[in-house]
């Protein structure tokens, strides 16, 4: 195994810095500029039936710059290949093009101009499997099982620079294996194994745990009639619910414009449970703290404390528009590194505390069914069980739920586990995601299932 980040991305860093210098040199009076870079060198292997469906590699990097002039702004994005003779003509043409455009645009009263001189450089080298060794390392452990999944690995970079003098560079090596083990009847266990060093023993232990869970799924699934049931939501399921807070939830702009499910909480028309606390924390260093204006987010920002909305995510743009104080949020005002505080429920007590009800490992395809009222619909998925008197009785046929967050994170929240699990972000739309969430499991009373 070899560290990847330093070796494969150093050329890109050199080219990015050269591009920044050249573009800044080319600026005219009254012009300001900011640039971002997102890049990756990735290996992707897709598995089905403990075989390989597709395998390949992708190298990609895209630079985006915003030119600001007389309260107007526009951006251009283009590939950054690391070959100056290719990249600089593209950048020059883009700069000329955007200069032609700016006088045609209306003024933007909430334009955020670059300021500050903060710099940072973080490089997290990892020890990843050699690409040709991946298939054998992954599949060697699952021979004879119906294993399906996706391995993604390699180097990722995020960078920022601007005409005020800020510069940030964040590069990391990482891998993730997101997998499912299926029974012949179609029941499944979900697992994720992620990090920046492949550990064969840890992978074996993770799979052993999944195989043990799979044994519980061999019984015929039980059909549960619609209704309200006491429910244990395992950390992966809680993470699915938490993701909804980033989609019309904790965003200050969404709250200001009537687009947030937390409006009722902010207006104190509804309460959440004193047991529920949500924090944005960058302590683990898995994602960059800088945003698309080069601003550094605080290491910790409490969002919900003991059920009260104490902070929203406020970007500099939103701050200008609504007279607020920005807190380092990204333009999307979504959670980048969230953590839900633990409760008191131990792992050993979960089934006993659940008593009779549903043990839900994962959720699927969540959406707002009534956003202003905080109502969410979605499905149970993977290893979910009917439990009676603290004993697992049988796996269940998947159920649809439709429930308000003001109930499941409010009056109906009985307890949270005293341990947290890291749920990695394994998404790969456009490019591989970074980071993840630290979440406990949740015991909820009267969770509403509708189909």
């Amino acid at each position, binding site marked *: 195994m070899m560290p990847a980040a330093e070796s494969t991305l150093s050329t890109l860093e050199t080219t990015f810095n050269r591009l920044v210098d050249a573009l800044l040199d080319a600026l005219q009076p009254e012009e300001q500029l900011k640039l971002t870079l997102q890049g990756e060198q990735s290996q992707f292997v897709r598995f089905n039936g403990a075989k390989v469906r597709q395998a390949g590699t992708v190298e*990609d990097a895209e630079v985006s710059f915003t030119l600001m002039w007389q309260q107007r702004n526009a951006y251009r994005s283009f590939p950054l290949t690391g070959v100056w003779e290719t990249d600089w003509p593209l950048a020059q043409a883009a700069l000329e093009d955007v200069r032609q455009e700016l006088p045609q645009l209306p003024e933007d009263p909430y334009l955020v101009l670059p300021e500050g001189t903060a710099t940072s450089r973080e490089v997290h080298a990892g020890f990843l499997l050699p690409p040709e060794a991946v298939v054998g390392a992954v599949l060697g452990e699952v021979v004879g099982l119906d294993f399906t999944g996706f391995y993604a690995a390699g180097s990722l970079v995020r960078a920022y620079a601007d005409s005020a003098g800020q510069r940030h560079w964040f590069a990391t090596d990482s891998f993730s294996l997101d997998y499912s083990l299926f029974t012949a009847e179609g029941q499944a266990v979900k697992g994720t194994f992620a990090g920046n060093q492949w550990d064969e023993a840890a992978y074996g232990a993770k799979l052993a745990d999944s195989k043990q869970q799979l044994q519980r799924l061999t019984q015929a699934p039980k059909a549960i009639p619609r209704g309200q049931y006491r429910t244990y939501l395992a950390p992966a399921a809680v993470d699915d619910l938490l993701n909804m807070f980033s989609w019309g939830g904790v965003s200050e702009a969404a709250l200001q414009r009537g687009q947030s499910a937390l409006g009722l909480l902010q207006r104190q028309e509804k309460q959440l449970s004193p047991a529920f606390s949500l924090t944005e924390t960058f302590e683990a260093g898995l994602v960059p703290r800088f945003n698309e204006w080069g601003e550094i987010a605080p290491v910790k920002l409490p969002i919900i404390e003991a059920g009260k909305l104490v902070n929203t995510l406020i970007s500099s743009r939103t701050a200008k528009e609504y007279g607020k104080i920005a807190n380092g949020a990204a333009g999307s005002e979504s959670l980048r590194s969230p953590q839900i505080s633990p409760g008191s429920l131990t792992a050993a007590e979960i089934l006993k505390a659940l008593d009779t009800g549903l043990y839900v490992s994962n959720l699927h395809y969540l959406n707002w069914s009534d956003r202003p009222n905080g109502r969410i619909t979605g499905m149970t998925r993977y290893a979910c069980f009917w439990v009676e008197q603290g004993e697992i009785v049988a796996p269940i046929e998947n159920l649809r739920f439709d429930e308000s967050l003001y109930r499941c994170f409010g009056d109906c929240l009985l307890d949270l586990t005293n341990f947290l699990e890291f749920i990695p972000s394994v998404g*790969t739309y456009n490019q591989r995601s970074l980071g993840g969430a630290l979440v406990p499991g949740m015991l909820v009373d009267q969770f509403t299932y509708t189909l």
Partner: protein
Amino acid sequence: MISALSQALESLDIAADWVGLRGVKETVEHRTVRDGLPQRNGKTLHQGVMVEVLVNGQIGYGATHSLDPKRLQAAVESAYRQALAASEWAIHPLTVAVRPKVVGQYQSPFVKPLSALSPQDINDLLIRLCRHLKVGDAIVQTLATAISNETESWFVSSNGSEVYQHFLMLETHFSATAQEGGIVQQRSNNGPLAHCYQGGWELFLEPHLWERAEQIGAQAVELLTAAECPTTRTTLVLAPDQMMLQIHESVGHPLELDRILGDERNYAGGSFVKPEDFGRLSYGSALMNITFDPTVPGEFASYRFDDTGVPAQREYLIQAGVLQRGLGSLESQARLGVAGVACARASSWNRPPIDRMANLNLEPGTDSFEDLIRAIEHGVYMEANRSWSIDDQRYKFQFGCEYARLIENGQLTQTLRNPNYRATTPEFWHSLVRVGDASTWEMYGTPYCGKGEPNQAIRVGHGSPTCVFENVEVFGGGA
């Protein structure tokens, strides 16, 4: 670019059974205005090459954003090594038959080119739309977006393929949000970014644009005081802008052969459809006729060839309610032994082709809109999707709409807010009792169909008439 790719192909040094190069150059111009103020103005250039290499019955891929010959050679070698390493564990031995030789071109139809409007013209248009949307003080947000997209793709292969396709696309959206205290309602132009077509600016500059914007603003306000959609089982009438979502989620995805083969089980999910169902399964009522049709002029996902070079043609997936064929590439067809269509598509140069929808349409029936409503004693009519959720087998779904009207004694009566409905797929499609005629048929599209590992968001188009479903569970909102 085709000559550059052909030259690169000739100069490659690799001992593979087949090599294909697919170059993509995509220029996207995005402009958004909120409340009359600019939010986003810019252009993005995506370009790169996807290399596929067939070795020992396994295809490996290597994608690069560089057109430099050395980087292309490196991508080919990487693809070769990936294929070789995986071939021992291949899920199915493939041959060059899954990448047939093809030569041809495609061009999107258009009247007014995408260059016809300047950045200033577009901003003026969007600002004016915001003004028309804001029909009163209750409107707390107006939004207008226009995204133009010019995509060129080139495909060359070691067995002589040479394809050039040139797509011109326009995606537009405008919406109004109304608020009164804690009640918030949103209305948009047929749902989120639903106006997605191939063509030029003629698609947006329609005669009734301003009138439509005012109607949307007025309906957002109207919804603030509307009654909640009742909780009941009743006759449900769906407008084409909701049928789009209904077809997409409960017909398109379950018929994808890669889902049936299990490729998607770890991400998007499987399907309740089994391989033995093709040619036999009664999917819905006899009024249900669904076609896969990438040949419809101007529909969002039209093309002449898929991304593996297979020529596209119109096919019935469901005819008179009976399942006929699936959405599957030559690879999936070979693995499953079921007929498919030309649907191996990739979201861009940096993703491999997988089984996708393209244009999936419900064919029109015989009833006018007035006839459909006149025949209903009690029901609910819903327009424009706002919420969507379906299980991993594409069986249990729940969808919500922006706007609804009650139907009483053959008439559309009071407006209803927060309309939702839920059902299971077979039950729902068997409850289809009337299908509107061609005068009710409308087509829409979306660029956000998500699937695959690595994830891919792809463009799809859906056309449908207004449809009537019996005995469906409908309900409203509330905490």
